[in-house]
């Protein structure tokens, strides 16, 4: 059993059965491109969500007549809390202009509210947005604090959408993965079925099962590898396309939808490993059927 023999054998077989090889490679490439793109999009959504989450803010409204020490106390409290990532004080002038912007469509309303009636507040960003209610509770009773607006229902909605869509996309990726595996096994099975006579002749001249299997295994491995490398190329292209579209058409909603090269790398590794695994296992299992006789 020399390595040279198996290498030679495998390359001859790949070439002599190139129609079959190409079919297998194509199948791997197409199926894994789909799986990879789905995985990539899932990661994009995850990134976008944590980006959105980063924007979640707690607004601590202060009473108009808050005293300096009370203000200091609130600020000290914000400073000491480890769950608070950062905060900023919004003075009356800015709060008023924010208010005007918010109600720009109803000028009558805006005119009805004097600047003095607009409260000042702290804009607080949290380490983990899910902790917003707890942090809000700390300040709610505090002297000088009017009310705490955790736009929590907004967070909740975004988190729900994100979770649902991540689950759905992951589900799609899994369905695609299973489909890919079945499709690849299918095409390998059919390809090897047409070589069953060859296998039986090998057995008849005294080749052991391992000796027969190894070249088929290597063939499957190489087909899986080549197919998944093509798929990897497609996934990279898809990533570029998405990034380009987001920038070019300035779909601001999707600004958070950044695909990091880490995500990409992870996806590519997953794809290539799956391709090699399915190729190898598929051909090994397919050959074994004709070895049992």
């Amino acid at each position, binding site marked *: 059993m020399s390595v040279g023999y198996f290498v030679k054998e495998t390359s001859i077989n790949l070439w*002599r059965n190139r129609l079959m090889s190409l079919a297998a490679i194509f199948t791997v490439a197409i199926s894994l491109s789909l799986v990879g793109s789905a995985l990539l999009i899932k990661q994009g959504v995850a990134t976008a969500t944590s980006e959105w989450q980063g924007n979640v803010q707690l607004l601590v409204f202060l009473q108009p007549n808050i005293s300096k020490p009370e203000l200091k106390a609130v600020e000290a409290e914000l400073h000491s809390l480890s769950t608070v990532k950062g905060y900023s004080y919004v003075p009356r002038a800015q709060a008023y202009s924010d208010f005007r912007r918010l109600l720009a469509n109803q000028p009558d309303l805006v005119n009805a509210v004097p600047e003095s009636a607009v409260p000042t507040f702290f804009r607080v960003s949290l380490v983990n947005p899910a902790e917003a209610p707890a942090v809000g509770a700390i300040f709610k009773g505090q002297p000088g604090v009017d009310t705490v607006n955790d736009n929590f229902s907004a967070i909740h909605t975004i988190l729900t959408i994100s979770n649902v869509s991540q689950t759905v996309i992951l589900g799609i990726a899994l369905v695609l993965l299973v489909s890919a595996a079945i499709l690849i096994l299918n095409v390998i099975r059919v390809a090897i079925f047409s070589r069953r006579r060859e296998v039986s002749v*090998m057995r*008849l001249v005294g080749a*052991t099962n391992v000796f027969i299997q190894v070249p088929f295994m290597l063939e499957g491995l190489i087909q899986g590898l080549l197919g998944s490398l093509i798929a990897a190329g497609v996934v990279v292209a898809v990533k570029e396309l998405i990034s380009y579209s987001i920038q070019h058409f300035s779909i601001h909603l999707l600004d958070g939808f950044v695909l990091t090269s880490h995500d990409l790398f992870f996806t590519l590794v997953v794809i290539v490993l799956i391709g090699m695994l399915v190729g190898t296992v598929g051909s090994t299992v397919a050959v074994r059927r004709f070895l049992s006789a």
Partner: protein
Amino acid sequence: MIRFEEVSKSYSRGSSGVSDISFEIGRGEFVFLIGTSGSGKTTLMKLMNREIKPDTGSIWVAGKNLVTMPSWKVPYFRRNIGVIFQDFRLLPNKSVFQNVAFALEVIGKPRKYIHQQVPQILKLVGLDGKSERYPDQLSGGEQQRVAIARAFVNRPLILLADEPTGNLDPDTSWGVMNLLERINRTGTAVVMATHDAGIVDSMRRRVIEIDRGMLHRDQTRGVYGIGV
């Protein structure tokens, strides 16, 4: 070397096959297996090679009990046996050279040995110059000679030849018979199924005749037809 004890084998469809066959073939013997078409010659060969298992009875080949042999041992067993199949069974994806070399690669012979042995044996069967051809680029007789070369090349203990001259002209046939005799003289037992009365009659070796699956005649120094 080969011992059949009350061996029966019937195929699922119909009653064909062989039934209640017993005989013994010693080391270095040369035996002709004859019988009408469909009498069971190839079935006997397949039983000797453990391509099929008998329904009842026991078979011993090269000191091994083929009925109880576990299937992982079969490849190692087959390396002691050269087989020329009636339908050649060449590997269509391999050239003539590769087909013959395969029988040596299987038993782990080094490359150098292979590259020295194979051309030699191809020359012996008259196929020098055609070693790069693929089976579908050969005439019927040439394919048969590739099968013969493959069966010879690893110097087996036993040689099973199923109508090895069926597609050959008389001259080439005699060349093959000479080869078989020479191999036989080195101590290899040869079992040859044939329809060629001329060859059987002039070689005068042991003849086992099968008739509708039953052992009909077992004669030392026999001839093809009884009446000849």
